[in-house]
Structure formats: structure tokens, C-alpha cells
């Protein structure tokens, strides 16, 4: 069953087309990765799904119902974790969660139970009476999540929920997303951290210039780029070589160097490994290790859009 169905979705701001005839389905039980560089149309799409923006054209159906005609039904079944923290600093963690849960109609005993449950879920049960102003960045992010899940939505949209937090909090949040999913919640997850998407998402869509340019499981996406191979060559310290001469070898598409390690992207069909090694050794470099890397989402994104996601 599709939790979210998007058909021909378009949003124009004057002459600028932010989202261009987008069609997309998210199935129940998925953790759906939504990848795109800044300005790709990701946030505009999320704003339309969460009814903050009216589409110029197209249709959004949540749990089978048109989100415009059945706005309350759509909103009640959605949980939004916005990229910018949306919490009240002068209210306690408990009051924050209870207020947002109350917006979804929860009252009385149920409200209390769900609020406590949500705070426990994000690991803030013991800080319920503290104000967010005393929290670390990671704790605030977790509170932001608690505010979105207390009403037990069917679909949760998380927009960059791990921006600017420490690795421990990030791991906690990623584990929380997995647990939410295990409990039956469908999740749409956007992130600039490709390894996060790779770790938790079961399906990924890549958005560029308002259009979905690829959509599928991680394996399906990686299979798109079978014509490219990635070589990683570790050199002994002090090795001399010429990036320029490697770049001129037939089949080599790109060469990068970082901390004594060369990353070379090359045409899979061209057998040029010997020539690359020869070029290095002719220059006096000593090869310490060589590995052909498995393609990852970063490579897929780079190949499809021509840009690195984090460099946007």
C-alpha cells in the first residue's frame, strides 16, 4: 500500500519552476531517502506534502486521500521534523511535546501517556522538566523529533534531522529512525550525509532541478552506474606523481588526492589499471595499497548530477 502518492506535482514561483511534474510513491513500511542538492526542490516538495505550500499543479495523496480535499486527515497522519528547530525555549521539554501533540487533538490521559512515551523514545525522559535552553544541540534535535511523533503518525518526514550534532547524538537519532520504522512507521528522510541515507534507507530518490532523476533501492541505483569504476590507491609518504598525467590516461574521468590516497574514477570498459600504475611508478611513487571501490550513493549522485552532494 502506498502511504504517499505524488502525481505530476509542480510548483512555480513566478517563472521559476521549483518542482517540475514530479511523480513519486512511498510504500508503507519504507524508509525513503530523498536526496538532492540545495535548491533541487526537496524542501519545496516537503512543504507541499505538509500543506505549507499549495502546489501549482498535480496531486498529493496521503493514505489514499487527496491532501488538499482532506487536509485534516493528511495532516493528522503526518509527523514533521523540520530542519530548523521548532521548539519553545521557555517551555519545558514535556510542555513542548504536549503542546504539539495537543495540536493533533490529543487531550487528558492519552496526551500525558503519549508525551511521556515520546520523550522516553528520544532518550529525554529524565529531562522532561528541563527547558531546551539547557540542552545540547543533539538533545534539541531529539526533542524536535519527539514533538513530531507523540501523535503516532503513519508517515514521518525528517528534513535533515542530524545537521550540526555530535556523532553520538547522530547515532542515537539514526537508531531511533530504525526503531520507528520497525514499529510500523513510514519515514521520508532527507540528509546531506550520504552514509546516513545508505545506512538506513530502503529506497532512495535523487532530485535535481525539481525532477526525480533516479528512484529505486540502493542496489538499483548503484547498478545504474556499471559503466564506471572507482580505484583507490594508497601511496607511501613522500611519493611524487603527476595528477595531470594520470588524468590524461584513456578512460580516466576524474582524479582526486586526499591525504596520500588517490581516488580515480574511470570507464569500467577501459582496461587502464596497468597504465595508471606505470604512470605512478615512472614518476617515482611507491604504491602501498590498491583497491577497486564498490560504487556508493555518493558516486551515484556525482555521476547523475555532476556535483557532489556535500559541496553544494
Amino acid at each position, binding site marked *: 500500500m502506498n502511504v504517499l502518492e505524488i502525481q505530476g506535482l509542480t510548483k512555480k514561483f513566478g517563472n521559476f519552476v521549483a518542482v517540475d511534474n514530479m511523480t513519486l510513491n512511498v510504500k508503507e513500511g519504507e524508509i525513503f531517502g530523498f536526496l538532492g542538492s540545495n535548491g533541487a526542490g526537496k524542501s519545496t516538495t516537503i*512543504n507541499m506534502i*505538509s*500543506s*505549507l*505550500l*499549495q502546489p501549482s499543479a498535480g496531486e498529493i495523496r496521503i493514505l489514499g486521500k487527496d491532501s488538499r480535499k482532506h*487536509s*485534516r486527515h493528511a*495532516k*493528522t497522519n*503526518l509527523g*514533521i521534523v*523540520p530542519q*530548523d*528547530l*521548532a*521548539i*519553545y*525555549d*521557555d*517551555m519545558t521539554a514535556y510542555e513542548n511535546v504536549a*503542546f*504539539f501533540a*495537543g*495540536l*493533533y*487533538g490529543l487531550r487528558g490521559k492519552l496526551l500525558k501517556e503519549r508525551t511521556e512515551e515520546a520523550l522516553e523514545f528520544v532518550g529525554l525522559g529524565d529531562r522532561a522538566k528541563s527547558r531546551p535552553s539547557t540542552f545540547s544541540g543533539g538533545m534539541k534535535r531529539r526533542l524536535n523529533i519527539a*514533538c513530531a511523533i507523540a501523535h503516532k503518525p503513519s508517515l514521518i518526514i525528517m528534513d535533515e534531522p542530524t545537521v550540526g550534532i555530535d556523532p553520538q547524538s547522530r547515532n542515537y537519532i539514526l537508531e531511533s529512525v530504525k526503531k520507528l520504522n520497525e514499529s510500523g512507521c513510514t519515514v521520508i528522510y532527507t540528509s546531506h550525509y550520504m552514509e546516513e541515507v545508505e545506512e538506513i534507507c530502503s529506497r532512495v530518490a535523487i532530485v535535481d532541478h525539481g525532477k526525480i532523476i533516479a528512484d529505486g533501492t540502493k542496489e538499483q541505483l548503484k547498478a545504474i552506474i556499471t559503466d564506471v569504476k572507482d580505484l583507490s590507491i594508497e601511496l607511501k609518504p613522500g611519493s611524487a606523481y603527476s595528477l595531470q598525467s594520470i588524468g590524461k590516461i584513456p578512460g580516466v574521468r576524474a582524479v582526486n588526492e586526499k591525504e596520500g590516497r588517490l581516488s580515480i574514477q574511470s570507464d569500467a570498459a577501459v582496461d587502464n589499471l596497468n597504465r595508471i600504475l606505470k604512470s605512478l611508478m615512472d614518476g617515482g611513487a611507491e604504491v602501498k595499497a590498491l583497491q577497486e571501490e564498490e560504487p556508493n550513493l555518493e558516486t551515484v549522485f556525482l555521476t547523475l548530477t555532476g556535483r557532489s552532494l556535500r559541496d553544494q
Partner: protein
Amino acid sequence: MWRDIWWVAVHTLKNTFRKRSSLLVYVGLPIIGVIGSIMLYGSAGQQVLRVGIANEDGSAVIAADTAAYVSSLQHVKTTLLSREELKKKLASADLDSGLILEKGYSDSMAAGKPEGIAIQSVKGQTVTAYIKGMLNAYLDNTAAISRAAGGDRAAFDKLYADYRGGGFKLETQQVADTSLTKAMSVQSIGFLILFMMTAAVNLSEIILKSREDRTYYRILSSPISARSYVLANVLVNIAVMVVQVAVALVALRYVFGVDPGLPIVQLGGMLILFALVSVSLSLVIVAFSKNSAVSGAMSNFIITPSCLLAGCFFPISIMPDTIRKIGDFMPQRWVLQSIDELQTGDTSRISINLAVLAAFALVFFLVAAYKFGRNNDTKTFV
């Protein structure tokens, strides 16, 4: 929908009054306004004039009677002293004015040619006018006796003795002067109007502030609509206004004992109608502001000058005609005018005044609703 509105309104109220300073701003300031206007008007009309008398005419009867007469006047405190002392005390402002009765003053009075009487003051006519006015009455009587005696000193003495013994006495009676308390209450309401308008903008600014801290968009992604959110804010705003009006009127009437000159319920009703005007104007300000800094600047630009022109700070009667005409375009003017008319018992124009106030509120609400509706975009507004 109303359940949602109530939830947001209660949250907004709790959040606003979580800070103790909000209590001072929304409840304390109107009381301070009442105290301010009482202090401003409290001293008027009850001033005591300190008058020094230098009687150089010795024990002459008329000079002694003149001094006694001045001493008997209400709101006058007299001191007998020499001319030199009088000058010193006037210069050092220990006295407000001085009365000098020179040698021969009594004889000149008896002769019907009053001479040798002088009033001195460094404060001018404001303090001498009252004494002069009262003394003239006394001197006119004495001069009339002199004319009746026809220059005959013995006849004058006899007539004057009869006049004194005839029980001539100046009887004064305190007439209740309500103009002062009425003016005081109008000015108190003027200050209350200022505080109501400022409070309304502060409360409406919560909408802008929630947009700045992003909670607005989070709320709008829940089943609450933008319209419900704004309505909840209006509800909170009106509730606070009603409390402000009630507190200020109770303080004015029952704590400070100032009679506004019209039934307190009528006054309260009119101010609650004005509360709608304040709230609707604050929504217009917020609708046209991109952020809370802009709305703060805009409210400063609109509220204080319009209160000034409408006569909230001082009576409109002292303003030039042109300013008065401009003041008619300010909603505050119509409240103050209504109060003024109800105080004088003239109710013929009250319904028009109230209709004008209601029209102001309606127009402001419509303008705000139009502007909110035009900003149908997350990047701009509702």
C-alpha cells in the same frame, strides 16, 4: 476548529504570562497610567497661597481690617512681617505674594482716594489674581462708604463702624467641582488607550515572532489552519484587553475613588469596543510587517502620534483647530469624545460615535484579512 483555537489560545496565554514582566506590562501599566493622571491633576485647585502682609499703617482700623480680611480668605495662609523681610521671602520663594499697606493707607481709604496698598510677587499674575480680585471687592465697599460720607471723617467712621458691626461677612460655600475629576478620568482613559494599543501590538507580534523562531510553520503543518492560529491570537488579545480595562477602571473608581462622571459599565463597554479597534489595528500592523522589528517601529510611528493628536495625553480643547480636525480621524478621539459627552449628559451623538468606532474596527479587520490572504506563502506569511 474551536477546540484547536482554544488549545492554541491557552498555550499563548500561558506562554505570555510565564514571564512576570508580562504582568507588569499588561496589567501594571494601566494602573500606573491612572496614578500618573491623578498625580498630574491631583494638585490642581487645592493650592494654598502663602501671602506675607507688611502693615506699615500701625493700628489703624482699616489697615487691620484689610489684613484680617485677607487672612480670612480660603486657600490663603498669611504671615505678618516687615517690608524688608517680605522682599527677602518673596525672593527666596518662601512666599507666593506680598501685600504692603503703607502708612496713611487707612486715611486715604476714609478720604475715598485709596493709596498706599500694593501687591508684590515674583510669580506674576497666576498667584496675585485671586488676592487682587477678593481685595477689590473689599476696597470697593470701603470706597462706597467713603463716597456716602461725602468727605466727612466722622460720618465715615460712623458708617464704617456700622458696616463692621452690621455683620458684614463674606460667606463662602464649597460647590462640588466635578470638572477636575472628570478631566482626570478622561486623561486616565487616555493613558489606558495608549497602553491598550501597545499591548495589542505586542500580543499580535507573537505571530511574527513564531514565524521568526519557525514554530509557526511547525504549527501550520499540524491540523491547525493559519486562520485558526490568527483567531486564537485575536482571542488572547481581546481577553488581555478586557482584563486591562477591568483592572484600570476598578483602580480608578474603587481604589483611587475618582468618579469618571458616567456609569462604569458604560465606560467599560465603550473601552471594550475600542479593544476591538486596537486588536484589528495591531493585526494590520503585523500583516504589513516582515518581522517583529518592523512592526515595533511601525507601531511606534502610529500609536504615540495618533494618541497625541486624539487628545490622550492632554485635553484636545487646548489644541489648534487644524490639529483637532486631524484628531477626528483617530479612533481614540471618538472614545474620548463619547466619554466627554456622556459626562455632560449629552447622549444624542453616542450611537454615531460608537458606530464610527465599530467601523474603524471593521475596516482594520478587513484590511488585515486581505493582507494575510495575499501572503499565502510560507516564505512570506499565512
